[in-house]
């Protein structure tokens, strides 16, 4: 494995019971780069993040993070690896019973023996980086969607992780918040020297900040390249996705029997 590659996924497949989600994915995430994984809802993007984080085990293939096989890790090894990872969940997943400050300080208090004065300085620095130092006394319920996402971002980078994973960080945000979060993701990656994995279906925002893009559909990688390659692509799937066309390789209709047949059988009333 190349030392330049932090995450290497080779032929990884995954299924929930008999329902296949991923079928033989190959992917490389180079160190220090911001890689976006895009695809329509339910295509297996979040599953891929959970596999990398060790929350799920693949049904086949090899998945290495920093040279170590994630599925073969013991519980302690997995927790040791997760201490070097940061993850931002779709809706932030902030702890609602503690303040913004305590949310960001959470990991420092759990995993380090740092004195409280130092934790205070570090938390305020992290909050300052996301522009919310002035909101450190607020409770999560008092934050807007965009602010909550930024606090979750500060929490994800609390211990300067080697790998930061974002699960739909733009979901449900207004265009201004979306731009702010996008720029923060890029700047934090470069400032921390981290590697970023961004799962999103927001094409325009992702193409602005990513170094490399993978398109996933029906559990397979259907296209990949730099943002310039993607914009210039004539691949029907990429074209449909980038320009948001209603029909194309990704069908508008959920698979069903022909409408006439359903009408005749009277099932339309069921």
């Amino acid at each position, binding site marked *: 494995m190349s030392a330049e590659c932090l995450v290497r996924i080779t032929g990884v497949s995954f299924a929930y019971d008999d329902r296949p989600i991923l079928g033989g994915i190959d992917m490389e995430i180079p160190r220090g780069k911001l890689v976006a994984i895009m695809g329509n809802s339910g295509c297996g993007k979040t599953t891929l993040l959970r596999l990398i984080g060790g*929350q799920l085990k693949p049904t086949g293939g090899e998945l290495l993070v920093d040279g170590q096989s994630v599925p073969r890790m013991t519980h302690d090894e997995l*927790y040791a690896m997760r*201490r070097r990872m940061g*993850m931002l*969940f779709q809706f932030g*997943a*902030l*702890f609602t019973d503690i303040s913004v400050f305590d949310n960001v300080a959470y990991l420092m208090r759990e995993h380090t023996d740092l004195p409280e004065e130092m934790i205070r300085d570090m938390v305020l620095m992290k909050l300052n980086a996301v522009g919310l130092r002035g909101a450190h006394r607020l409770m999560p319920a008092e934050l807007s969607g965009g602010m909550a996402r930024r606090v979750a971002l500060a929490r994800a980078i609390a211990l300067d992780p080697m790998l930061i994973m974002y699960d739909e960080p733009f979901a449900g945000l207004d265009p201004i918040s979306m731009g702010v979060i996008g720029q923060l993701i890029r700047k934090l990656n470069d400032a921390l020297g981290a590697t970023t994995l961004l799962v999103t279906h927001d094409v325009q925002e992702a193409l602005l900040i990513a170094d490399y893009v993978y398109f996933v559909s029906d559990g397979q990688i259907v296209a990949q390249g730099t943002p310039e390659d993607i914009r210039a692509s004539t691949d029907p799937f990429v074209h449909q996705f980038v320009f948001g066309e209603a029909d194309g390789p990704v069908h508008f209709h959920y698979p069903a029997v022909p409408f006439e047949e359903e009408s005749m059988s009277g099932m339309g009333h069921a």
Partner: protein
Amino acid sequence: MLETALEAIRSIGHRVNDALQTLGFAARFLAMILLYSGQSFRRLRLTIREVYFSGFQSLLIILVSGLFIGMVLGMQGYETLQRYGSSEALGVLVALSLTRELGPVVSALLFASRAGSSITAEIGLMKATEQLTAMDMMAVNPIARVVAPRFWGGVVSMPLLAAMFSAVGVFGGYLVGVVLIGVDEGAFWSQMQGSVDFYLDVWNGIVKSFVFGAAVSLIAVFEGYDAVPTAEGVSSSIKRTVVYSALAILALDLVLTSFMFRGI
């Protein structure tokens, strides 16, 4: 006809299978709680916080209910005892009813409704909003950090609440029997003192409430952790916590009582 019968048998089989799976998962869950309790105890303030939320905050409902039940016992007991000219034994009746049965059982039922349901709701909502997953991804074990402190908080709180319930209940019986009805005060207390055995009555009551506390707390944390992460799923889990806890308390009471008072 045959098809319907087979379908019914299949459905029963599925339900039994599901129930056994849940029971197995609950047993593993308890083993995990015990396994990670050491980590949890090293940060005792987490458990103390839960004793405050589950125990201290349930105090008002426990004390008020205890007082009312003691007063009702005083009235009902006097009405029955005076038919046999034994109204002086009112203190014994009130104290034994409370320490042996009503104290542990009623306070556990109240605890399940007040604290058990709130524990299930809290853990269930944490699961629905991905807080437990986030914790796990941060290399913080949710069983050690969230579940074990709540379990032990309930186990510690329950005997204390039951003891307070009984104490206030005895006072309620005294208020009605001695102050309002006029039963002899000396007889009320001395007969109680002479007839209530510390081991047989008080200690067994404490043991019962400890077991009820463990059962209710386990059901509450398990239902929260196992909740389907939707609004409807959490609501169903809360309902199950209250129903299963009540059934578990009454069933365990029967079993414990038959062991404790055998041969008497």
